[in-house]
């Protein structure tokens, strides 16, 4: 049972942790937060931007892995369609960039350097909904994510005094529900801000926080204490993952203790077996059997016993997994049902540890009779 719970808890810890990954571009346990807008902030009594010291204070909390500002454009940007297949559409937009470390996206698709004629962008999903509403109103068929990624777009970058202006092509490489602005690579934002900004200080109104796994409750507490807010969906997923993760961590802890205790009992059984056969071992040594040969015989016998235990544990795990996956699915948690390498790895580690322990038990027992 110890082995079964060990594999089960590790498997589901990994799966719960993976939950939501890949669907979103922000890394696991990462949220974007801003200060809550109150009446006093409207009247400019309290600030809605983050100072450097505020960011450092949040970063110094033990349950926070990293904090980085979300950089926004400090110049005018407009976005338009530039494709014969799609009707003309143009809008002033707000662009942002987030640190590469926080993004769960392949770097090959996500880079830009001065001189490049195409900017990869990550589009808020709401924007696609808006675009489809517009297409529908024009009597044009709506487009899917994949089709949208094939459409040519164009940015117009312009200084606030309208003296400088530049056009650059853009292509969607992904969508997000987590960020409200169009995301662009960091280099492109730096280029735009350096070239088109009027030189005024740029305020940091949003920051990204990456919290430690299973300590999401502490992150939430911090947000509340500091009057910060995040998108509700991000909070719910984080809370859910943290809660289930904690539950499985408890089960994992109990499993490790159970496996350790079972291991001790098995080793004691092996010692008992060896002492019960002490006469036979002694006699075999006296008639010319090599100690290593007898050690090998006992060792093979021991690892067969644990092989059966491990096999039973694995079978029980598959039965448990079948029921737990069904329960998670019924509860709306669509986790990957494949076998995790980590759970099989844990079984292998337990097997190897027991193998080593049995070898040394056999060796000690045989040489005691030598």
């Amino acid at each position, binding site marked *: 049972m110890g082995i079964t719970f060990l594999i089960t808890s590790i498997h589901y810890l990994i799966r719960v942790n993976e939950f939501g990954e890949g669907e979103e571009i922000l890394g696991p346990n990462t949220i974007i937060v801003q200060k809550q807008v109150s009446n006093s902030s409207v009247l400019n009594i309290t600030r809605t931007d983050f100072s450097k010291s505020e960011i450092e204070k949040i970063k110094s909390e033990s349950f926070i892995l990293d904090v980085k500002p979300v950089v926004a454009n400090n110049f005018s940007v407009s976005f338009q369609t530039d494709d014969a297949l799609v009707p003309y559409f143009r809008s002033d937009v707000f662009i942002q960039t987030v640190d590469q470390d926080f993004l769960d996206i392949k770097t090959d698709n996500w880079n830009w350097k001065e001189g490049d004629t195409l900017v990869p962008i990550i589009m808020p999903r709401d924007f696609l909904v808006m675009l489809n509403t517009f297409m529908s109103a024009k009597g044009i068929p709506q487009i899917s994510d994949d089709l949208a990624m094939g459409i040519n777009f164009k940015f117009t970058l312009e200084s606030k005094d309208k003296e400088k202006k530049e056009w650059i092509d853009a292509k969607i490489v992904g969508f997000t529900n987590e960020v409200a602005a169009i995301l662009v690579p960091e280099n492109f934002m730096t280029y735009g801000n350096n070239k088109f900004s009027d030189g005024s200080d740029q305020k940091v109104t949003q920051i990204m926080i990456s919290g430690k796994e299973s300590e999401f409750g502490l992150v939430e507490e911090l947000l509340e204490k500091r009057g910060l807010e995040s998108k509700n969906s991000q909070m719910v997923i984080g809370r859910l993952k943290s809660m289930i993760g904690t539950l499985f961590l408890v089960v994992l802890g109990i499993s490790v203790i159970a496996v350790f205790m079972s291991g001790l009992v098995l080793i004691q059984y092996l010692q008992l077996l060896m002492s019960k056969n002490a006469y036979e071992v002694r006699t075999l*040594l*006296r*008639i*010319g*059997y*090599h*100690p*290593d040969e007898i050690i090998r015989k006992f060792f093979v016998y021991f690892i067969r016993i644990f092989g059966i235990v491990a096999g039973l544990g694995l079978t029980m795990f598959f039965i448990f997994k079948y029921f737990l996956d069904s329960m998670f699915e019924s509860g709306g948690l669509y986790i990957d049902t494949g076998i995790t390498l980590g759970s099989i790895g844990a079984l292998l580690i337990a097997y190897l540890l027991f193998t080593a322990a049995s070898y040394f038990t056999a060796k000690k027992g045989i040489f005691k009779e030598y």
Partner: protein
Amino acid sequence: MNITLANIMPTPLASINHGADSIWGSQIELEHGKRIMLNASSGKGKSTFTTTVFGLRRDYTGTLLYDGRDIRELTPSDWTEVRKTKISVVFQDLQLFPKLSVRENLLLKNELTDTYTESELKKLLEKLEIDNKWEQQCGLLSMGQQQRVAIVRAMAQPFSWLIMDEPFSHLDVDNANKCLEIIHDRTMEQGAGFVLTSLGNNHGYTFDQELKL
């Protein structure tokens, strides 16, 4: 292989007075191919001699040499080689596997050395009139029958020395003689020597040497 006992004195026997002709505390050479009787009364260390010479006991002073090599230097692999090919022993307590049959007891040794075929082993048992016990559990045999099985097992390996600790103590004269005949033939065949510990009975055999404890 010559065995040298250079002033060997087992610790448990150190407090006992040993005679001037005792091997304990003396320089003794067991020369290759010699047939030796080791004569002593009870408690003088016959079993201690067997187990010490066979390397099972190390609680002694002095030096024990196999062909000039101190046996304290032997590694587990060396000891395996000695017990498989150089020295065969019939222990006083026989050291058979009581739960295994006669066949299994003999094959367990013979498979290690590949000395005899099964039919040859059966012939040896036949000579000692216990061939009908082939499939019988050793623990259920009489002590005399078990002694004969242990003697046949000791034959089932190549050796330079055969050391026997009161091997005929439960045998009648006729059976003891049959056993001695087999032992004689086997040692002659290999040019090996043997040491037979006894309480004084030479079993009508002419030994090359007689030692005392």
